[in-house]
């Protein structure tokens, strides 16, 4: 089973992403901010992270940086999904270690498609 960690402080957005991914057969866990995400990733391996940018306690950029640092050290793909669409937002995400930056709200089919592609080999079907 492919595990995804959905990280967003907005419960509604979390529910949206989680239900889309669960319907597609992913096993989904949730975290409400970057800190919770890092804590979760330290105890459980995930195959994909779907991370919001603007969050309390630890924002998305810092979260992804920490996920990639020695503290966690995960090479699992990271999707960053944010309402921020100013120039440079995507670059910051890529510098932090994200693999794709998308702007909210994300098309339902696209999210599942990208999640499946990035976890191919161990996609939901595997």
């Amino acid at each position, binding site marked *: 089973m492919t595990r995804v960690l959905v990280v967003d402080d907005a419960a509604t957005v979390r529910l949206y992403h989680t239900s889309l991914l*669960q319907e597609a057969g992913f*096993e989904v866990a949730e975290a409400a901010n970057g800190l919770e995400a890092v804590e979760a990733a330290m105890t459980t391996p995930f195959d994909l992270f779907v991370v919001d940018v603007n969050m309390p306690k630890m924002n998305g950029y810092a979260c992804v940086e920490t996920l990639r640092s020695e503290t966690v050290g995960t090479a699992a793909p990271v999707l960053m999904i944010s309402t921020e669409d100013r120039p440079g937002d995507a670059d910051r995400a890529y510098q932090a*270690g994200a693999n*794709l930056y998308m702007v909210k709200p994300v098309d339902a089919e696209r999210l599942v498609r990208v999640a499946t*592609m*990035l976890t191919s080999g161990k996609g939901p079907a595997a």
Partner: protein
Amino acid sequence: MNPLLAQFLAEANDLLASVDDGLLQLERNPGDPELVNEVFRAAHTFKGSSGLFDFPELTRLTHAAEDLLDAVRGGRLALDSGMADDLLAAFDLIRGWLAHVTAHERLPATAGQDAAGLITKLRAPLGGETVATDQGQEPSAVRRIDPPPEWLAPLGTEWLIETAAWLSTTASTLRFVRYLPDQDCFFRAEDPLHLVRQVPGLDRMTVIRPEQWPPREEYDEYACLLSFVVATRASTGELEYLFRYVPDQISIVELDGAAINRHLEGEEAEDLETVPAAAPDALHVDARLAADARAVLTAAHRTLAVGEPTGTQLLALIGSVTSAALALGVPLDLTGADREAVNAAVEGVLGRAPIEPAATPPAVDHPVLAALAAPPAATPAGAPADLPAARADDPGGQVGTRVLKVDQEKVDRLMELVGELNVAKNGLTFLAAAAEEEFGSRALSRRIKDQYSGMHRIAEELQAAVMDVRMLPLSVAFGRFPRLVRDLSRRLGKTIELVTEGDDTMADKDVIEALGDPLVHLVRNSLDHGIETSDERIAAGKPGTARLTLAAVADGDAVLVEVSDDGRGVDPMRVKRKAYEKGLISEEELESLSDTEAVDLVFRAGFSTADQISDLSGRGVGMDAVRASVEKLGGTVTMRSELGSGTVTRLRLPLSMAVTQVMVVSVAGQRFGVPVDLVVETVRVPAAEMGRVLHQDVVVMRGEVVPVIDLARALQMPWAPDDSRDRAVLIVSVNGQRVGLLVEQFHREVDVILKPMEGLLAYADEFSGTALLGDGLVLLVLNLKEVLGLAARAA
């Protein structure tokens, strides 16, 4: 309701509360960056979540609020009270909208109009609109950048490059419309060319010929075969309005420079003339997958350009590149590759990957709700749809949310069931008695009783647990006051500091809810009558800013709530005189009443000290209404006041109203319940010792004369006491006064769940509710205050 919408509404509620609270605090500590950040975050979350639904006005309004708060956060603006007013007004409007959404699942029809003025106001401190729109309409258009569609190519690569550069430098956006008229549109009186000509702010328009003209003999001159792609500066709203009769033939996207560049990077080589006919569905999915794969590769390319990924970051990059390449049908082995090698591979794949066939028109926008409601269509990569979503023993599940939000009704239902369980449980004692009396089996009776005590313990624990769930902090009741005090004090021209203490004291939700109105009344009263204007205060040698305190503290099984102010206090002489003028007290009382008793007069019905009725508290309800509603909760209210230095009103309320202890009495063979809190004692008085003073039966107890009321007569039931037996008198305390109730018989005390009277019976004021007894009988619980009134009228 759609679960996503339900979640949104629940979340919205919390957000609104934190925005209100944050803004009010901000006004007091204008510079506090933590507070600004908190409010900004709430607005931001609002905007983000509202985008999941078709609530464009909500998104637009929250976006305007967010931008303003962002400027405050960034130190570009200082929040003044005008801005705070606008922000509060915006969130008030949203609150109203959400109530409408709760009922109708859509925004009110007037939402656009309602929001327009506020949006302009919110945008004004930022120098007006951020997005330059030539028409000035939809000033705050939310720039939700769509993914670039595949149908931009006909506009011409050169023009697209230029436009992208221009858009990027000005950080603005353009709307792109594709109009695919139905072939038989002419028969529906649609005129595509006329429509397209009417598009305002037109930047560019292309007429697209069909890929292949039909053979001459099949050519139908009444079929529309052309379609249009248009770039315009008009707002999405205007475009939607213009094309409102042909929405299904229209795709509108909003793109910025970056989005157009993405299109160019992904589809530069595409040439409309060589594109094959519309692809079937399977191909359609593939085309979209290919586009996504290209997006990932482009992201990787960008990552390598703006950063220097090493270690796990590089590993992750290689992983995503490998997956994306594979999706494009290019297997890569980048194990151990360095940045240059990865970059070369990415460029290679982006350059040589097959050009995806032009897809059929993109799905209609807002697929969100539809996607949730309907089962997922054609799951990519052939994922079986019936895989279990998550395992129960899943150690990785639900990291973030251990707190459940439960619908209030569910908890109420649970409480009701606990009540019914209690009743069913009590049935066992009747069964035990029956086993012994009717069937003569003592052993069985004992076993039933054992069973009963086991169940009793569990039922009690269950009840305690459910009641615990129902407990809410007093902050819920206090939450509305910062706003209320702020608004009212401004209107009154008074400066008042509100202090709340003991917000975390817990009480049953029914108590908390019922507390709201009395508290509002007390606070209004205090603001209106108690607290002086700054000038008056300074003249009296007090600080100019008045202090209003809401404090709560738990006291055994009660909660004490105090509303205190340091205002002018209540003048006992003036109160007495007023009460005398209104005929509430006798001349004798005018002389004899102590100051404390005098202050208590304000709770009498028909009393109002304000010489003129103000628009705040003078609404025909006085302090008597406060006392009545507090007593209805089983509580008491008292007032202490010192002339010149302030007033303290203290409410004492039961922690929980869920379970009421009642004493069962009977009269004329009918049983009634009396709340135990009111019962002082039960006495049996020989008939001969009953006295009579001025037509009133009395009983003398320890030297005190207590009036006795015949319950049967008050309730108009046929019953007369048997003179040969002692009279059963239940001494109760109502409004601080001792009264005896003449009844036929006393019974036991029981714990009951009181249910309010419903339907026609709701008018029977002499009863406060009903309760089901263990033997299945319905017990009417008396509202003693009303009963005493009835008795007085009957006499």
